């Protein structure tokens, strides 16, 4: 027994008996005569405080209940062989896909149940560490022998809306396992998604896979562009159906909370459907796309977008005139586009400066100026060295390497069907990073900060690629311009990923700002301190719109409550939206292979206080029946019988 001290409770047994022997204050009941009763209870001593103990079923039942409750309190257990080591690290996946919920499946509760089961299988004397893992690991309880504490920790674990990444959890587990060679890592997960942890663990991995459904559709892209001078926005929405069945979902578009568009989308299994919507009023500030109805994962059924403010920057396109590039730039409402040939470049800059309307962005198409401007610039197909780096010939028919899905410059950009005829081989200058590369390592698209100016690079001629013919091109152009002109939407970017924290610059004279997060239904606010003109926004943990405002009680009443910036937080994770349980063996293989190794047999402790508790409950019911049982007379009354006169029957 785990708690032998509870045996002290056995003292209740003689106390119960004593209560039965103690003469009770009884209720007076007048009767015609006690003539017969006296003969029945002659053995009762009228004045003694104690009476002789007589057999009573009630007493027997109460003694049994007391004994069983004491027995249960001692937490008796039996032992059995365990498949777990003495040191167990229990990782419970809390990524967004674990919040899958249908009428038949509550994946988070399933995970907790499996986790509890692991605790119950813990070998005798074993210790356990419980880790909740989403995009990072959180230790809920560390190396404890106390199974109650472990169970309480498991009860506190709930799913998040964050992307899953077991790297942190595996790294932590490795560190714990390194201290004890007899360790087991148990991962409770749906194994959904393709991403594997970046690190393995030095201990055997057991996977408790949960979940079964894959019925989910997700909004995987949402982008709003303000068309210059237009009355409507250009809205781009993509809905993905990672499930194995075709689906039809109703897509609803809300502008500042008002429904402005709704349509049915047919999404084939494993594919995505895209919609270009031109019915949203240009005056809208916040756009929400919503898949009406329900599916297994609610977090990806809503997405938000902040419409860029109508603030234009003069941009100069220098080159021979690429219609694709010109059209893509002209579509961006924040740009006021001017074009000039290579020869007129210097004069155009001078004239603009003289007129007091300098350019904010220069786009060089197929040329590199001798004097690089100290302005944000985009170089397309540069023929020679420049601020972006050096050009070392060409690469023929480069194949596009798989890009980083988290790359913000490739947001909503699908390059899987893009082909490039040939590209410049560029050695990037310090400060630039490759966004898209060829399989040979040549940067095809790059961006960065060189000498205090932001630069972008497209390393091939657009005419020698099918990129301009695809929807990816205007999106890539828009993303590059957003990068090159970062202050267009206030202090916040128009979007930020879930789980990411962010430090932004604000007016150094501010002391406090207020960060509010709203998902349309619920709004939460938090006050953040401004330190040296910088504010650190905590990681976003839910889909919605975040707004940063000056505190209402700011010392300058004119700016109190003023909006500093808005940003949209969306899940947009193909791994999390694909909720179909994955291949658990891939995780198992990341652990130390134990084949051929003999781990000493462990014994697990199976507590069985609960059947005792059930027995005590049953006995309580019996006690109640014994106490309140109907008398024979009341039964006779109920069934209409009455005493027959004895001797009144005919012989």
């Amino acid at each position, binding site marked *: 027994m785990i708690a032998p001290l509870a045996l002290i409770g056995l003292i209740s047994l003689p106390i119960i008996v004593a209560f039965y022997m103690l003469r009770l204050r009884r209720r007076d009941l007048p009767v*015609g*005569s006690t*003539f017969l009763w006296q003969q029945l*209870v002659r053995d009762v001593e009228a004045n003694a405080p104690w009476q002789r103990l007589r057999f009573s079923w009630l007493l027997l039942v109460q003694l049994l209940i007391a004994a069983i409750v004491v027995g249960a309190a001692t937490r008796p257990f039996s032992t059995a062989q365990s498949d777990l080591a003495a040191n167990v690290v229990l990782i419970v996946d809390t990524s967004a896909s674990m919040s899958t919920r249908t009428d038949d499946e509550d994946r988070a509760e399933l995970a907790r149940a499996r986790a509890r089961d692991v605790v119950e299988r813990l070998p005798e004397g074993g210790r356990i560490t419980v880790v909740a893992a989403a995009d990072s690991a959180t230790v809920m309880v560390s190396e404890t022998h106390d199974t109650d504490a472990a169970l309480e920790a498991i009860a506190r674990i709930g799913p998040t809306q964050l992307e899953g990444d077991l790297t942190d959890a595996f790294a932590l587990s490795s560190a714990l396992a390194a201290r004890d060679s007899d360790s087991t890592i148990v991962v409770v997960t749906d194994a959904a998604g393709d991403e594997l942890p970046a690190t393995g663990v030095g201990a055997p991995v057991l996977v408790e896979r949960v979940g079964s459904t894959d019925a989910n559709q997700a909004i995987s892209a949402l982008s709003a562009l303000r068309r210059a001078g237009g009355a409507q926005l250009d809205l781009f929405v993509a809905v993905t159906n990672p499930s194995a069945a075709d689906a039809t979902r109703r897509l609803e578009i809300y502008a500042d909370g008002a429904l402005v568009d709704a349509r049915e989308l047919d999404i084939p299994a494993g594919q995505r459907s895209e919609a270009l919507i031109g019915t949203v009023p240009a005056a809208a500030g916040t756009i929400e796309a919503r898949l009406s109805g329900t599916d297994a994962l609610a977090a990806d059924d809503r997405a938000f977008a902040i419409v860029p403010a109508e603030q234009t920057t003069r941009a100069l396109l220098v080159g021979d005139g690429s219609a694709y590039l010109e059209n893509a730039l002209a579509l961006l409402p924040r740009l006021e586009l001017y074009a000039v040939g290579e020869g007129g470049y210097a004069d155009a800059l001078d004239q603009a400066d003289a007129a007091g309307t300098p350019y904010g962005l220069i786009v060089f198409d197929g040329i590199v100026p001798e004097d690089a401007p100290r302005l944000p610039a985009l170089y397309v197909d540069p023929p020679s060295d420049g601020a972006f780096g050096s050009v070392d010939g060409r690469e023929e028919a480069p194949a596009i390497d798989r890009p980083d899905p988290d790359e913000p410059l490739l947001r909503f950009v699908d390059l899987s069907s893009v082909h490039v005829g040939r590209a410049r081989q560029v050695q990037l200058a310090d400060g630039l990073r490759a966004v898209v590369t060829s399989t040979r390592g040549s940067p095809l698209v790059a961006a960065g900060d060189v000498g205090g100016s932001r630069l972008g690079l497209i390393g091939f001629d657009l005419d020698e690629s099918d990129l301009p013919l695809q929807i990816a091109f205007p999106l890539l152009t828009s993303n590059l311009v957003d990068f090159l002109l970062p202050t267009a939407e206030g202090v916040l970017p128009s979007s930020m990923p879930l789980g990411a924290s962010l430090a932004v610059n604000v007016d150094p004279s501010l002391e406090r700002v207020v960060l509010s997060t709203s998902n349309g239904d619920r709004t939460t606010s938090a006050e953040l301190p401004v330190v040296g003109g910088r504010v650190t926004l905590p990681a976003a943990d839910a889909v919605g719109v975040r707004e940063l405002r000056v505190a209402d009680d700011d010392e300058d009443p004119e700016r109190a409550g003023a909006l500093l910036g808005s940003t949209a937080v969306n899940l947009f994770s193909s791994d999390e939206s694909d909720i179909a349980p994955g291949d658990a063996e891939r995780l198992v293989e990341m652990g130390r292979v134990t084949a051929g190794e003999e781990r000493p047999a462990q014994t697990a402790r199976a507590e069985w206080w609960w059947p005792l508790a059930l027995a005590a409950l049953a006995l309580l019911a019996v006690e109640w029946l014994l106490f309140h049982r109907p008398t024979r007379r009341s039964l006779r009354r109920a069934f209409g019988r009455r005493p027959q006169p004895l001797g009144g029957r005919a012989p």
Partner: protein
Amino acid sequence: MPVTATHRAPFFDEAFLRRLEQLELASRRLTAGRMKGERRSTRRGQSVEFADYRNYSAGDDLRQLDWNAYARLEKLFVKLFVEEEDVTVHILVDASRSMDYGEPNKLEAARRAAAALGYLGLASMDRVSVAFLGDGTATAMRPMRGKRRALELFNFLSEPRTERLTGLAAAARAYAARMRGSGPMLLISDLMDPGYLDALRDLAGTRSQLSVLHLLAPDELEPEVPPDARLVDRETGHAVEVSGDDDLVDRYRARLVDWQAEISSFVARRGGAYVLVPSDLDLADLLFDVLRRRRIVE
């Protein structure tokens, strides 16, 4: 017009009284009475019902000689006839405090039963003697005869009366000592008195035909006792502490059955009858069914 008591609600209505007149109290023994009534007597006398012959002896009434027998047998025989005489019906009502209990009240039930049985006797032109037993004495009314005395009988039975103590044996002995005439004797009592056997012995010893109507309340037959109760005797104030479980009730019932058997056997050995009468038993059922089947009335 119904015969009613003076202080209480009427015992019976006229229709019930007419039904009662169809009955009469049975007399198992032939008794010797003092005047002619409607019953047969053990005394051979002058009536029309032939009983037996006996040899003539000097002094016999010559009118009783059977001359036809003499002609045939040349011996003198005297014809003997059963003489019809009255009997005295004794109705004794236990008026102790233990009888003033129950729902319906046992004493009230006893009064009604005594009134009905007394009326039977009056209607049969028997002498009826009614007495309350209590406090060690018997309070009897003067014996009466005839239906015209019914009102007097009912008034006597209606008088408020509950005695403090039973003293059933002493009261029965007192009544037996001064009773006159024999015949059916009906004792209506709960017999909840330590001297109940002495009382029965004294009453049975009067050569009357004793019938015991053992009157008990329903909750004395099937008691319902709370788990922890103190039973207080209405008569003596004595208290008994009990724990009312089925075991106790079972033992009570067993004791009750034994007690009834003891009384029944005691009375039967003395030629009497025993009838248990729950106080909620309908009077008509008692008279026309129970007592009739027991041949106490016919």
